[in-house]
């Protein structure tokens, strides 16, 4: 069975600093996709970044980047120049298979950005 683990229930960071959120996963699949979703207090689920397992290059989206270590089954999210609007719950998620595969979420990390 596939599992996703986020070991940091809560984190905080000062505005403009950098923070890294951890995620590990367990799977026997070779081709899969990993995602980070953000859930601000508005409750909306927002896709932050995605990574294809067959690509060695780490994905980057503006201030957000990942450190994907396939052998270690690790997928951390780095947020640079943190902004107050980054305050949210962050979920790591995993999916494999074809059409209709289910997205499996970690427990989430609640990030607070302090002024």
């Amino acid at each position, binding site marked *: 069975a596939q599992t996703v683990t986020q070991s940091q229930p809560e984190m905080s960071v000062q505005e403009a600093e950098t923070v890294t959120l951890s995620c590990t996963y367990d799977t026997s699949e070779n081709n899969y996709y990993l995602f980070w979703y953000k859930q601000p207090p508005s*409750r*909306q689920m927002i*896709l932050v970044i995605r990574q294809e397992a067959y690509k060695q290059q780490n994905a980057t989206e503006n201030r957000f980047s990942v450190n994907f270590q396939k052998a270690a089954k690790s997928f951390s999210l780095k947020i640079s120049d943190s902004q107050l609007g980054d305050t949210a719950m962050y979920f790591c998620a995993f*999916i494999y298979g074809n059409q209709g595969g*289910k997205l*499996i979420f970690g*427990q989430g990390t609640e990030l607070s950005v302090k002024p």
Partner: protein
Amino acid sequence: DTAVSQTPKYLVTQMGNDKSIKCEQNLGHDTMYWYKQDSKKFLKIMFSYNNKELIINETVPNRFSPKSPDKAHLNLHINSLELGDSAVYFCASSHGVSYGYTFGSGTRLTVV
């Protein structure tokens, strides 16, 4: 235009009642989902439909029944509501697994 829209956003109802949550997507996606987010914010899949066909049915009580009249709509009907059904229910859609899901804004269901 909202890509995945759910109604209602909030639902407060008494134990024993029957209620429905509606979901519509205008993205042309073939697959739609229902997820439940519990009080600890954990998200778990309930159902998945691909082109109106049920393809994922997790361990969910029979009181929950999804219905997909066409591939743009996936509704969730809940019979005999219980206190433990209180949660946020998210609808989502996808076009293949590689792009992740697009989520609706969620429905907060409170059973009193």
